[in-house]
């Protein structure tokens, strides 16, 4: 039986921070009190006793987080084929660059002439992203993909407001990421569900049926969240444009098509990119991300402020944009994340980025071909950066997607994305990314096959999984029914 890298070993238990500590201990190096102690000239009733934080020593804190880290799994630990998430390797040098003194220490409110380095990075990144997507103008404000979507939706609204049109609906495919309808709703649009066809992609006809004068347009993802390229994209965008609508593109899956697809040519008007996916900035256990939006010229005036412009050899922040939807972030978005993506793009160059997309797609197709005999393939079409299976074939053994996912953990793999997209019941969405090599993919495939065999022969192994982890399956129902959010 093939075995993944997962084995059992010694790790350390560790209590909650406030279950340690003793009053009077300290882990902070006290700065010099080089000014006299001032008497506090604040009303007594405005003053407090300070929070009930535990007092710890430096080694207490160090052991705490060192031990906690041992219960976690990151890309550096092993393969993390989480579909729709693009968990590629995060280069160490990017971290170092973002921490460059002078870059990491810069204050956001300095005058432009005092932060030319900061602004140059932003300006060049804007240019790079425009070139990568084929679009015309870029704003780096959005702090994540969802905020990019929101910016896009606000721009839709502003566009129609300016045109004096009142439209309230928006078409969103059933395969869309949940943030799409949520962002649209936040901006006052009513999502209209667009059913994807039986082949997993959109049918221009259904768009034609639904796209009307009350509809601002469409919000679609290409390649979509099934890992499929929307082949009717040109027809769809043409229909929407014909009827006065706009097209929003969710570019979270850009990793499949760098240097391969031109989104402007596809007819996209606004799109966001997830720098924390395609451009290798680490996910940090949930964030921070960055979700810049790229638009065609016609929409540039509506972009959030500020953008960076260059005049002569100087860089400036541009605030004077009367049509702008305004500001999304207190300053320039997650600037440090932008720096890492900038560093990555400079390290890769055009050729390597295109190669990365090719290899990401190769890896996904390789897994698709290698597992299609044992797992039900949701759509039998060439896939892009990810492939979607389901647990259909395992149902007769009463084994679910969840069981297989949890068993992968014991073997040392992070499970794929499961039960998403919703259109595929029991979905198993695998996105290997380009940074996994063939040997590691082969081992993963073999282990997955073995798990499927176990499903037939010894299903309990799967239902009980994981068993090697510090904790077994957790009771999510109790957590939600009696929420305990603080200790």
């Amino acid at each position: 039986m093939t075995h993944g890298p997962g084995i059992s070993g010694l790790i350390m238990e560790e209590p909650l921070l406030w279950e340690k500590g003793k009053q009077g201990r300290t882990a902070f190096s006290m700065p010099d009190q080089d000014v006299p102690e001032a008497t506090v000239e604040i009303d007594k009733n405005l003053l407090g006793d300070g929070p009930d934080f535990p007092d710890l020593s430096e080694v207490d804190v160090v052991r705490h987080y060192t031990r906690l880290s041992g219960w976690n799994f990151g890309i550096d630990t092993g393969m993390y084929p989480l579909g729709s998430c693009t968990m590629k390797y995060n280069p160490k040098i990017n971290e170092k660059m973002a921490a460059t003194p002078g870059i990491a220490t810069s204050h956001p409110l300095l005058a432009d002439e005092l932060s030319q380095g900061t602004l140059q990075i932003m300006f060049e990144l804007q240019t790079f992203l425009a070139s990568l997507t084929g679009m015309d103008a870029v704003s780096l404000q959005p702090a994540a993909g969802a905020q990019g979507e929101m910016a896009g939706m606000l721009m839709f609204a502003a566009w129609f407001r300016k045109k004096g049109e009142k439209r309230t609906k928006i078409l969103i495919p059933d395969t869309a990421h949940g943030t799409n309808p949520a962002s649209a709703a936040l901006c006052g649009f009513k999502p209209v569900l667009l059913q994807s066809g039986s082949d997993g992609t959109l049918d221009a006809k259904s768009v034609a049926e639904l796209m009307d004068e009350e509809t601002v347009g469409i919000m679609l993802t290409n390649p979509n969240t099934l890992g499929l390229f929307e082949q009717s994209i040109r027809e769809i965008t043409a229909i929407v444009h014909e009827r006065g609508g706009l097209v929003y593109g969710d570019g979270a899956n850009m990793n499949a098509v760098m240097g391969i697809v031109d989104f402007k040519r596809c007819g996209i008007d606004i799109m966001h990119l997830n720098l924390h996916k395609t451009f290798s900035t680490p996910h940090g256990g949930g964030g921070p991300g960055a979700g810049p939006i790229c638009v065609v010229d016609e929409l540039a005036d509506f972009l959030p402020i500020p953008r960076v412009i260059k005049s002569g050899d100087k860089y400036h922040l541009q605030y004077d944009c009367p049509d702008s939807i305004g500001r999304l972030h207190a300053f320039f978005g997650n600037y440090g994340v932008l720096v890492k993506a900038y560093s990555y793009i400079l390290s890769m160059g055009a050729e390597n980025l295109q190669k990365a997309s090719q290899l990401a797609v190769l890896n996904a197709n390789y897994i698709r071909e290698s597992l299609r005999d044992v797992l039900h393939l949701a759509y039998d079409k060439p896939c892009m950066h990810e492939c979607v299976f389901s647990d259909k074939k395992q149902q007769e053994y009463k084994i679910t997607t969840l069981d297989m996912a949890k068993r992968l953990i014991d073997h040392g793999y992070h499970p794929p994305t499961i039960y998403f997209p919703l259109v595929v019941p029991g979905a198993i969405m695998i996105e290997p990314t380009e940074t996994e090599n063939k040997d590691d993919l082969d081992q993963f495939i073999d282990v997955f096959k073995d798990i499927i065999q176990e499903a037939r022969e010894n299903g309990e192994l799967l239902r009980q999984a994981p068993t090697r982890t510090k904790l077994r399956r957790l009771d999510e129902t109790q957590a939600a029914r009696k929420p305990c959010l603080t200790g």
Partner: protein
Amino acid sequence: MRYLPHTEKEIEAMLAVTGHGQLEELFAHIPEDCRYQGDMKLPEPLSEWALSDHFQSLAANNYSTSAKAVLLGAGSYSHYIPEMVPSLIQRSEFLTAYTPYQPEMAQGTLQGIFEYQTLTARLLGMEVANASMYDGASALAEALLMALRIAHKKHTVAISSAIHPYYREVVHTYLQAGIFNIIELPVAENGRTDLAGLKEIDDLAAVALQSPNFFGVIEDLETASREIHAAEALFITCFTEPFAYGLLRSPGISGADIVCGEGQSFGMPQSSGGPGLGMFACLKKHQRNIPGRVAGETVDIEGKRGYVLTLSTREQHIRREKATSNICSNQGICTLTAAAYMASLGATGLRRVAKLNYDKAAYLKNGLVQAGAKLLFSGPTFNEFVLTFADDFKPVRQRLLDKGIIAGLELSRFYKEYEKAYLFCVTETVARTVLDEVIEEVRS
């Protein structure tokens, strides 16, 4: 390329399995008229070393590289970060993990978030906290949206003009598509928000104040709480400088319903304003209305204590357009950074460093007043304050700039009405010698 592991041979072998002759064929089904034309226009790839050189030269074009002190706050603060904090939190098990969707593989992240939520709630005097928003500004916008959800029949919110101008801009952006009214409350003589007009406002869902506010002035939250609650509105407070709560009564104890703000001060480099950390806390009764992710305690099938992301029925994965917010990726690693920072300080350390901020700011404030400057507002302050100068301050400020000191922020950039006024910030990182230099320059 060192990030692309495939050898030519491997590519061939894999293409044989997928049934393609060459890599390009993988994209054969993409319509010609969608294709990228030619090559992307990007610079030639840089080696690690050329890249480092490039960053050195970029950094050299930033003033902060050589500055002695930047006496600016206004939402971004220079605080000491113990070396231990980044070296722990950048451990790759934390940094290179995704959102903890598989809790058995992410107990480190999850316990870390749970601890962050708890310390945040304790700091702010609240009952529950979420696992972060993008930043202080969007946190405030989401707090207002949350209040509008709770008071679902009402459509008006009032926000103090003493709230950070950019936060107010973000609020306007977030709320622009809705059918909401935003009223800005004026500033009184003492620099505090003037709440006198509240009674006149109909349909009021919530009132938001910032304390210490943009002028550094500490609001009287308890009094405000009474007046706001009397107007049957929810009381939202926000902040840009959490260090203040080492000294001040917490917003929660003062009566706030929702508290939010920016946590950058707790261990994040200023980095031109991001990534920071939108902190967000509220009373327990509102917890199902909170935006964003939360971690909660539970047990595993053997009864062992553990943590999971919970209350996900509020989120867009499940609720889609009916979610409490569209936020998905948040500021994950920043929550762990803030928690490690708060843990490093401890109760004792937070209080002492907060006091030191107060002491140093008081030193400069008093020194400059003695040197001839005037306080614009009479209200009490923490580590920021506004001064006006009789003579033109610009040449003095330029001379200080030449010496490596940024002396305050021109307030008229944000408030046309306050001419010749400057917002100063002094934290524990500014040496007395620098403060003396500023005072001396102003005096002469």
